[in-house]
């Protein structure tokens, strides 16, 4: 059986101030997977990825990358890793091309091999025309793409993306998604952390949710969504209404004069709700989900975990 791309066992991290960031987590990511690691701010996502990429020193536990224990041969494991951190971490005054080529040099890649590889990546990520310019002149989205090009220069088998599309406009985000899907199809295992749950839902096959240093869910996106009991739809009405209608078996709220919020439980049929609305003279012109499905699941799961552990429910930050 093939070694997992990433295997984590009993990983703990206690920072110098006594904060327990990770409390013995176990995690496996299969080779070729597109894996999402989700959690509210401060849950332990970046600490986990920091340990894997050597930026954070673990307190206990073990981490293996493609079967290579980082305590035994971290240098060898690092050849398989590409890391795109959350914050910009390159010299803003260097040229775009130099940043990528320098990283190749750190991996011992000869220039004759690094130059065509850098050209291919910079072209693929729409940065080729900017290669001679200083990195500080790039837009935020371009800087993120530069970090992706840099992380891929040595052809890693496992790419870690820590909020790669944060602050990136929708059009660019979607083009980055296409790029990530392509390299995943070509065989690169990807681990992604994101606050954009739509991103996780549309890109990832498997997902783990981390909260207060514990893994509270680790399953496939499909299975996770199957656990969703209630979905809420926003219905736009053709004519204003004074009050929400009463529908048998459904919960309906009036959002404003021309919009209703309809809650549908698993097993219920939307047709039944629409029939009742039509019978009462309501004319629906459009409909959409109130929130991303995964977002609803994520919020309920984190809140449930907080309630079980007796913690106050933190405000969960999500963007969709």
């Amino acid at each position, binding site marked *: 059986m093939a070694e997992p791309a990433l295997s984590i066992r009993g990983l703990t991290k206690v920072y*110098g101030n006594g904060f327990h960031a990770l409390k013995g987590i176990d995690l496996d990511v299969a080779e070729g997977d597109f894996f999402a690691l989700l959690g509210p701010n401060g849950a332990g996502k970046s600490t986990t990825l920091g340990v894997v990429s050597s930026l954070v020193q673990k307190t206990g536990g073990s981490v293996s990358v493609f079967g290579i224990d980082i305590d035994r041969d971290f240098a060898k494991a690092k050849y398989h890793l590409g890391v795109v951190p959350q914050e910009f971490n*390159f010299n803003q005054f260097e040229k775009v091309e130099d940043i990528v080529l320098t990283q190749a040099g750190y*991996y011992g890649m000869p220039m004759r091999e690094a130059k065509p590889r850098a050209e291919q990546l910079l072209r693929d990520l729409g940065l080729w025309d900017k290669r001679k310019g200083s990195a500080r002149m790039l837009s935020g989205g371009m800087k993120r793409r530069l970090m992706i090009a840099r992380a891929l220069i040595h052809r890693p088998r496992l790419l870690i993306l820590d909020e790669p599309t944060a602050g990136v406009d929708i059009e660019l985000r979607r083009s980055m998604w296409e790029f990530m899907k392509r390299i995943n199809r070509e065989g690169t295992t990807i681990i992604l952390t994101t606050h954009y749950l739509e991103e996780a839902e549309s890109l990832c096959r498997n997902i783990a949710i981390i909260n207060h240093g514990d893994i509270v869910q680790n399953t496939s996106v499909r299975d996770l969504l199957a656990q969703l009991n209630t979905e809420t739809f926003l219905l736009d009405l053709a004519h204003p209404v004074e009050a929400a209608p009463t529908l048998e078996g459904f919960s309906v709220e009036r959002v404003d004069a021309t919009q209703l919020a309809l809650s549908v439980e698993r097993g219920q049929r939307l047709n039944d709700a629409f029939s009742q609305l039509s019978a009462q003279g309501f004319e629906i012109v459009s409909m959409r989900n109130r929130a991303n499905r995964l977002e609803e699941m994520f919020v309920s799961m984190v809140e449930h975990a907080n309630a079980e552990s007796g913690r106050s429910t933190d405000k969960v930050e999500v963007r969709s």
Partner: protein
Amino acid sequence: MNAWQTWIALWTLVTKEVRRYMRIWPQTLLPPSITMTMYFIIFGNLIGSRIGPMDDIPYIDYIVPGLIMMAVITNSYSNVASSFFSNKFQRSVEEMMVSPMPNWVILAGFVVGGASRGLAVGLIVTVVSMFFTDLSIHHPLVTIAVVIMTALLFSIGGFINALVANKFDDISIVPIFVLTPLTYLGGVFYSIHMLPNFWQGVSMINPILYMVNAFRYGILGVSDIPVGGALVAIAVFIVVFFMAGLWMLERGKGIRS
């Protein structure tokens, strides 16, 4: 990493450092040249002509080795201190940490890069000094050995300073309050034989005195101290400082949480 990959990584880091200080040459190479020109004009020509010879050597000739060494020391130190701390500050140090590059290569890359700036500035100051005096080198091998070893030693010092620094102020404390006084009191402008016995003894615990005098011996053939001992002492300091810097890197001091 195999030997060839390690060499590529080291070369990459060194050329990156050289590219950095060459890109900002008006800040890195030009100011020391202007400062040293002022020293030559004021202390060498104007005041020096009234001071007379020192150890039977014209005063301007006497101060040339010390001024070259002063430029080498301050530039080697400040180059690595500011460059590595900037890498920490901008978090671009993470580029190196996530790579398989061994820690000794990271240390050696910055040190060689910093030493190359110290030596480049030393060369510029030497060329400037030739406008004021005829410079002939008595012991070329000693001269080259001392200047290279000194540049390496202070580059390592700058690296350690940057590792433990938390803010930009922390990398200017040592150059201002330690290096500059020790350099001025290290026999750049005078022979320690001019001092009373007590202060001669105090001067002997200043490590920079040994470097300046060993370098002066290489160029002028005169020294206040035994040159062989000075060379050994510098070599020992290089090894000790390098090992200390490597140990701190291995422990992630100042760069890993």
